[in-house]
């Protein structure tokens, strides 16, 4: 991966806009005169061409006939020679198989065994790597991504091997495009990778797949951008989210100015054979992950050409209903005991007031106390809790007025605080401060502490 230089998209775009206006030095009359002359000459030339064509009417058919005869002469000997060669090859293969006394299938099996053993060794190294990184995760307590950008936590690069998990899954083109300019050890960072979590929930009379995100901390080269991290999230074998895009997704391009993400798939992608359940999960995952990071348009391409055969939906160029706008988070208790946060947008909860305006932060917190009838998720804030908000320039203070909650464990309190922090991420607040009585019940947050707002929902056990 290359180092960042002083050339960024903004500077290039600015330079392009400064290209000077280049004007034609000729006057309008001069130009018209030239055009008039050229038109006259063209007309005369056309007439001459017609005459020539008439004169040479016999020439082209005769030449074509001669060429055809010549081609037949050339092609015939090569056809004979190919046929002979093919027969010889077939005889050779038959003889070879007979000589070995075993079918060719055994050779294939040997190659497979070798591949399997390589795969095993790779898995082993990846799992070793994971152990190290999980330690880092615990030490860092889950580092958040913020408002579409990646928070990088720089640490010294201990060894190139620690990036193995990332590098193994990185794009092929990186080898070509992003070779390091200088051969010095690049610093690495710990970043939170959003991991899709899929669950099947009862919605009305039927069950359907839903997606939430958790975050795991992984080590990346410092120059890794959000596109690299999302690519890793969607293709890494380490995350089992119901479908794998490994070997199919070859690039993610992000255009933050246009809120657009472009997902480029390889020609041999298998999306056309998605089962309806897989199609639903993949669609939801892509909608959620890009919506979460503020993208409203997700374009699908194959080798740069728009359009991907997407399961039963057939060819689609753009994913519909990607919603970067969100208000509120709700809780879902996974069967494995995890509590996952669901975006209000994904849950289909109300995000606007009676006049159609997006909910204010205070109204959002109020909304998070209740859910739609028959919902498969639950409120993130207890009904009886009274919250007061006082917004500052880029920060907000949330005061918790009373303690009539039914919470019993510190983890339940943490979920409450976490949900408020996440809700604040949709409002451009950089910091949030909690005050009030409940702060005694948690060790994760202190009264009056400035907490950085993050927009990646993390799992809580």
């Amino acid at each position: 991966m290359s180092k960042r230089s002083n050339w960024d998209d903004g500077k290039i775009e600015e330079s392009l806009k400064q290209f000077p206006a280049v004007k034609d030095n000729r006057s309008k009359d001069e130009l018209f005169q030239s055009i008039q002359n050229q038109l006259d000459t063209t007309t005369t030339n056309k007439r001459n061409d017609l005459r020539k064509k008439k004169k040479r009417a016999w020439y082209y058919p005769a030449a074509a006939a001669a060429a055809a005869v010549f081609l037949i002469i050339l092609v015939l000997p090569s056809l004979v020679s190919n046929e002979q060669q093919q027969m010889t090859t077939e005889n050779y293969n038959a003889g070879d198989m007979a000589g070995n006394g075993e079918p060719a299938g055994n050779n294939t099996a040997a190659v497979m065994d070798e591949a399997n053993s390589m795969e095993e060794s790779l898995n082993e190294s990846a799992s070793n790597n994971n152990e190290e990184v999980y330690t880092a995760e615990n030490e860092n307590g889950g580092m958040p991504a913020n408002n579409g950008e990646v928070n990088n936590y720089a640490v010294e690069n201990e060894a190139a091997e620690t990036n193995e998990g990332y590098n193994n899954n990185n794009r092929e083109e990186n080898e070509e495009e992003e070779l390091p300019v200088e051969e010095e050890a690049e610093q690495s960072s710990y970043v939170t990778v959003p991991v899709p979590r899929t669950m099947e929930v009862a919605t009305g009379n039927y069950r359907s797949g839903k997606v939430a995100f958790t975050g795991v901390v992984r080590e990346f080269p410092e120059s890794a951008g959000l596109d690299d991290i999302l690519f890793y999230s969607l293709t890494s074998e380490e995350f089992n989210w119901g479908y794998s895009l490994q070997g199919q997704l070859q690039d993610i391009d992000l255009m933050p100015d246009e809120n657009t993400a472009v997902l480029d798939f390889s020609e041999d992608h298998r999306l056309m054979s998605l089962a309806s359940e897989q199609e639903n999960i993949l669609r939801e995952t892509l909608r959620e992950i890009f919506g979460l990071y503020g993208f409203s348009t997700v374009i699908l391409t194959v080798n740069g050409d728009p359009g991907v055969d997407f399961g039963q939906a057939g060819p689609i160029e753009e994913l519909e209903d990607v919603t970067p706008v969100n208000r509120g988070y709700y809780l879902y208790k996974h069967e494995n005991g995890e509590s996952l946060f669901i975006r209000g947008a994904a849950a289909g909860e109300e995000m606007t007031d009676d006049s159609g305006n997006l909910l204010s932060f205070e109204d959002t917190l109020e909304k998070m106390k209740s859910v739609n009838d028959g919902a498969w998720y639950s409120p993130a804030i207890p009904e009886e809790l009274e919250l007061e908000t006082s917004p500052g320039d880029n920060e907000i203070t949330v005061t918790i007025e009373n303690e009539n909650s039914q919470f019993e464990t510190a983890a339940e309190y943490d979920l409450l605080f976490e949900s408020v922090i996440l809700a604040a991420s949709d409002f451009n607040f950089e910091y949030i401060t909690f005050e009030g009585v409940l702060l005694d019940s948690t060790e994760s947050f202190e009264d009056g502490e400035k907490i950085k707002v993050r927009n990646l929902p993390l799992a809580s056990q």
Partner: protein
Amino acid sequence: MREEFDRLYDTYHHTLFQYLFYMVRNREVAEELVQEVYIKVLNSYKSFEGKSSEKTWLYSVAKHVGIDYIRSQGRKKRKWEGKQYEWSEREFELRDQAPLPDELAVRKDEVQEVYKALADCTEDQQQVILLRYIQSLSVSEAAEVLGWTESKVKTTQHRALKALRKRLEEKSTSKLKEASE
């Protein structure tokens, strides 16, 4: 015909000329080509159905004229040298040798660097850059001119910027190396 010409000239001439100039990077050639555009347009004006806007139709004609010229130059060069080139390779060789136009020579170094680096982009990437940034066409207008979907315009634009950045970074690095040697 004169009336039609006057109207088109007053409305579009300078932008069309500029588009062709940046496409072929040569004033004299751009002068010839813009004439050819007028001839094609005036000859087929009656058949213009108005399915697209007049502006994008003119740009579309200019694009074809410019690209035909570039490709014909490529074929000539291949004949002279007796070599087989990929279209893109040869085009940029030709352009690299062209001197910097006067208007650009007085601009900041960065602008000149970007102008030179643009020559290393593919034909599609150059078209999108010219239409979007230099001619200030919207995504939908550029899509109409190029006969692409808006998605393709956006994708190509992004890739073009990426390619430009890569080229500019390479040039900066090689300059630094030369300076240190």
